[in-house]
């Protein structure tokens, strides 16, 4: 992967629900290998943007182009969306990360078992293999999901609020993995709320409030003026909104 190639390209993308845009006219590139934060108030379209990239939500307008296929994306949605009461062991949950490789019926070879153990070790869950996922704490569950991401071995990794309601120790451990992915030249896009963390660790930032507010070097994007602008933009919901006539690409 050369650092100049593009991992994800947005051509005047509008994403939304019904006909109402949640992400409005986003245009630009995410270079391969970048470590990018997506920041903005609640309802700004951050999660919607990730759904658009994964392909579970089709753009209302414009186009999202991926280098490689959608199966090259590993996606961690917000924590609440998993049925934790389901009788499944930590090991089996993590092993699902091998799906793209083993598919519907492929077996799990000895080499894969080693990889699963390595992934569990990397997130500090050795000894948890046989535990049902219903017994995990929020932080342990997030560690297990990161282990699954490790196994997916994808060139593009999307994280939706991965550290919300997670304690400092776990956050630090998981951030190490994020750095490791960055060092391995993977593209990482994370939706985050902790601006200090973004400034410390993420070189690139997209500030969004339905419309993109600013996109580029984190230091410049997170200026007080931009943040204020973002806060003002998002609340408007107009029940009589007109049809948008801005041209798509």
């Amino acid at each position, binding site marked *: 992967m050369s650092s100049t190639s593009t991992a994800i390209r947005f051509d005047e993308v509008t994403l939304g629900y019904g006909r109402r845009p949640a992400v409005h006219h986003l245009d630009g590139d995410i270079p391969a290998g970048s470590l990018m934060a997506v920041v903005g108030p609640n309802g700004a379209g951050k999660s919607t943007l990730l759904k658009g990239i994964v392909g*579970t939500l089709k753009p209302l307008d414009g186009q999202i182009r991926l280098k490689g296929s959608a199966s090259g994306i590993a996606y961690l949605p917000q924590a609440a969306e998993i049925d934790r009461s*389901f*009788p*499944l062991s930590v090991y089996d949950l993590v092993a699902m990360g091998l*799906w793209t490789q083993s*598919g*519907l019926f492929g077996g799990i070879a000895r080499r894969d078992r080693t990889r699963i153990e390595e992934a569990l070790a990397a997130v500090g869950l050795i000894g948890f293999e046989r535990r049902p996922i219903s017994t995990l704490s929020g932080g342990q569950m997030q560690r297990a999901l990161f282990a699954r991401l490790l196994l997916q071995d994808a060139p593009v990794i999307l994280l939706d609020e991965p550290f919300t309601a997670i304690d400092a120790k776990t956050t630090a451990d998981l951030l190490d993995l994020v750095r490791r992915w960055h060092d391995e030249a993977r593209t990482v896009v994370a939706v985050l709320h902790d601006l200090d963390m973004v400034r410390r660790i993420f070189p690139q930032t997209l500030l969004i409030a339905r419309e993109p507010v600013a996109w580029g070097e984190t230091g410049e994007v997170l200026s007080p003026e931009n943040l204020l602008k973002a806060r003002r933009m998002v609340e408007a919901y107009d029940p009589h909104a007109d049809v948008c006539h801005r041209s798509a690409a």
Partner: protein
Amino acid sequence: MLDLFYTPFAEFEFMQRALVGVIAIALGGGPVGVFLMLRRMSLTGDAMAHAILPGAAVGYLLAGLSLPAMTIGGLFAGVIVAVAAGLVSRFTALKEDASLAAFYLLSLALGVTIVSLRGSNVDLLHVLFGTVLALDDSTLLLLASISTMTVLALAVLYRPLVLECVDPIFLRSVSRAGTPTHLIFLGLVVMNLVGGFHALGTLLAVGMMMLPAAASRFWSSDITMMMIVSIAVGIVSGFSGLLLSFHAELPAGPAIILSAGAIYVMSLLLGREGGLLWLAWPGRHLEA
């Protein structure tokens, strides 16, 4: 003493056939029931069992108590109601449980009306509660084929079925198997209900699915183990239900379901995974 358990099956062919029939039903229905329960679709199973009735009734109207006519009719009606309920819940404000309730009430009323158009009350009882003691060769073959197909299909679909329950978003992000898996699974449910319908009737067929499955949840938190327990519970209740009906001269179908119900209540009380007795007297808390 052993004679009580053995003789009825050794001496009477209809008892042998009934036993083979319920074993076949348990083999297919047990695992399907476990997945229905894990997918929180237990009531969906119940509703679909009722939904089969008008289809089977139309078959009956056209061809009398004919196996192929009632089977095909039942399959059609089951699939139509499953799809219709899915569409209504997806495109209107009504949730799936409400739309299923509406459809199954309609189906039950329609089915009973259609059967009464032509038949006697005996036929109506036959359709509602089945004839497990009068299974002929072709019906047994049908039951055996259904359970074989079910077990094979579940083996193939196991991963996406599990994943679609736990983490549907992840499944969607790695594979397109989710929707076809769900549809095939609904097909399996309908098939097993139609099979169970011939032996136990439209009202009790779902009992051989849900009672063993619900009982199995109290013995294991491992899906494979739950399916095995569920099958075993089905077979044991079939066996003991038939004996009960033979010795006490009870109707066979209800006796089988009552046996399954007894095992369920026992599991509810004693089951190692969250049974009531263990909840009431858990013992003193542990070190860690």
